[in-house]
């Protein structure tokens, strides 16, 4: 049976009991009310009997109609009371019958008394017998007492009935309550036991399932709440099993995926490592490539510089050839023209002859200088340029070179400013060569003529020679290179030269332990400054040529 059903039954029973108790109380109270009413009537009858006796007595005494009518009125109400008596019990009914009989007898007695009394009253002459009166009074008293006694007894009986009824009702109520209570207790006990048993089974099942045995099923008892609970529990266990199964599937899948992920990570790591290796290899290759590139660039550069050197040498050879061939052309031309003149005419005009011989001499000198420069270059490059140092007066040397220079130009004015003497330990021929070169340059690069200033300054350990012209000057971008081999600042400008003069000069000065510098004064032209150490007779290690 379901607990709910049980509860409904219990509730219905409880209601039934309540209704029964209520009904019992109502019935009882009705019974009690009726009994009490009857008891009151009985009491009233007792009282009426008493009063009727009393009234009859009075009438007997006074024998007036007033008392008679009072008695009759009282008897009427008394009769009403008697007629109202309704009792159920035999004992009570017997008493009622007694009372009714008593009432009868009382009326008869009083009638038997009243008639003689009335007649006597009407007939004044006839008196009332005293004995009669005594007997009548006694008869009335007996009747009255009998009625009182019966009525009182009836009243007591009714009171007892009320008490009994009440008691019976109480007993009924208590009994019903007892029965219900017992039922309730039994019921409660049964439900409790069922619940406890089920809870215990569920608890055991929970523990077993909780321990992991998902195949455990608890016994499904009956088709009631506990059965439902058991079924629900088993259903839960089954679901749990399913869920667990799917969970374990899921876990297996997760494990699988985790493993796959780990594998992927491992592969990724391998790839990473490979990638790093490749990266480092790539970097190495890059570095090697870079090295190769640098090497290549160096090669290209070296090649370029080699090419530049080769080109410079080619250029130099071309220039050298031109420079050498020009005086040779002139020499040959004059010689052949002279010869042709002589062969044609047998003679040559003296002016022509003189001029030709002069040019031939000039060109021979030019040729000699060129050859000397080439020889110097050859010596410098092979380290065979040697100095023959001796004490020399630089002032005199410069003055002589300037004087020679004046012979070659009539458009330039050469000014020399020098101390009377400025001695230095030098190779005088080489220094003369350098100074000649500087003065030649000053003249050559001042094609429009002008002054050339030559200064000699003796300053302690050094002798300084400065050559200043006001000619073409040197473009600033060429300044750093004027002492380079084969370098010609005015290349293409048509001014002759091998590009060797300043190079050879610098080498010579350097071998003397001195230096040569070029300045480009803002007012035009060029200024070369040659600084030579005064030196001493002692060997100073500068007398050996050094390769370029």
């Amino acid at each position, binding site marked *: 049976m379901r607990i709910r059903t049980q509860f409904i039954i219990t509730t219905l029973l409880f209601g039934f009991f309540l209704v029964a108790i209520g009904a019992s109380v109502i019935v009882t109270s009705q019974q009690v009310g009726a009994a009490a009413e009857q008891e009151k009537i009985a009491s009233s009858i007792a009282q009426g009997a008493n009063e009727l006796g009393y009234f009859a007595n009075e009438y007997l005494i006074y024998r007036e109609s007033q008392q008679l009518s009072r008695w009759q009125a009282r008897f009427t109400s008394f009769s009403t009371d008697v007629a109202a008596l309704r009792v159920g019990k035999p004992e009570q009914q017997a008493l009622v019958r007694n009372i009714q009989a008593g009432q009868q007898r009382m009326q008869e007695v009083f009638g038997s008394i009243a008639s003689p009394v009335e007649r006597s009253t009407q007939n004044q002459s006839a008196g009332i017998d005293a004995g009669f009166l005594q007997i009548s009074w006694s008869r009335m008293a007996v009747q009255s007492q009998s009625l009182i006694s019966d009525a009182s007894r009836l009243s007591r009986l009714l009171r007892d009935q009320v008490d009994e009824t009440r008691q019976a009702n109480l007993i009924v109520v208590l009994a019903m309550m007892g029965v219900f209570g017992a039922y309730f207790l039994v019921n409660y006990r049964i439900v409790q036991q069922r619940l406890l048993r089920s809870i215990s089974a569920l608890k055991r099942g929970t523990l077993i399932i909780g321990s992991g045995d998902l195949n455990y099923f608890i016994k499904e008892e009956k088709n009631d709440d506990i059965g439902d609970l058991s079924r629900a529990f088993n259903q839960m266990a089954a679901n749990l099993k399913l869920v667990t199964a799917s969970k374990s599937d899921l876990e297996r899948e997760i494990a699988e995926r985790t493993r796959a992920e780990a594998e992927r990570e491992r592969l990724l790591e391998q790839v990473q490592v490979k990638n790093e290796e490749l990266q480092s290899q790539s970097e190495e290759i890059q570095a090697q490539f870079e090295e190769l590139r640098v090497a290549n660039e160096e090669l290209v550069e070296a090649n370029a510089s080699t090419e530049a050197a080769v080109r410079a040498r080619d250029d130099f050879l071309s220039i050298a050839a031109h420079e050498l061939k020009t005086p040779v*052309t*002139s*020499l040959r*031309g004059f010689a052949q*023209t002279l010869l042709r003149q002589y062969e044609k005419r047998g003679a040559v005009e003296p002016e022509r002859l003189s001029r030709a011989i002069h040019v031939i001499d*000039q060109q021979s000198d030019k040729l000699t200088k060129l050859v000397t420069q080439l020889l110097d270059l050859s010596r410098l490059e092979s380290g065979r340029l040697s100095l023959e140092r001796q004490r020399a007066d630089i002032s005199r040397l410069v003055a002589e070179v300037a004087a020679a220079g004046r012979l070659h130009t009539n458009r330039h004015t050469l000014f020399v400013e020098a101390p009377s003497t400025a001695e230095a330990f030098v190779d005088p021929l080489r220094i003369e060569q350098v100074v000649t070169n500087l003065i030649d340059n000053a003249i050559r690069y001042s094609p429009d003529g002008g002054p050339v200033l030559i200064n000699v300054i003796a300053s302690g350990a050094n002798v300084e020679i400065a050559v200043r012209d006001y000619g073409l000057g040197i473009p600033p971008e060429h300044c750093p290179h004027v002492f380079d081999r084969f370098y010609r600042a005015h290349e293409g400008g048509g001014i002759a030269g091998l590009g060797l003069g300043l190079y050879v000069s610098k080498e010579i000065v350097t071998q003397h332990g001195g230096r040569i510098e070029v300045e480009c004064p803002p007012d035009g032209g060029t200024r070369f400054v040659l600084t030579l150490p005064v030196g001493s007779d002692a060997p100073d290690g500068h007398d050996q040529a050094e390769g370029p």
Partner: protein
Amino acid sequence: MNAKTTVMVVDDDESIREFVEWALTEEGYEVVAVKDGAAALALVENLHPSLILLDLRMPGMDGAAFARAYRGLPGPHSPIIVTSAARDERCPASEIEAAGHLDKPFDLGDLLAVVERHTAARR
């Protein structure tokens, strides 16, 4: 028309100009000698020389520059004989459209023969 044939000599070397002028004058040519291309260009239009002896390496306007400028002028153009110390690769005779070439140092006989040959038509 002048009876004499004019030859223009363009060379920066004074001694070369001098002997060429001397030698050609002796042979009956009118010789105009200048030291660079600019001077030659200034004269050439009015002079209409029968022949131009042109050096290449010169200060100022060099031989090649003169030739380009000269070819830019309205014709007719005189033949040019390049007289240089070496056949210059950077400025070949073909660019100048030279009629001939005399390598320095040239032989006087060769010079006279070349001039004779290129001026024959005009004589």
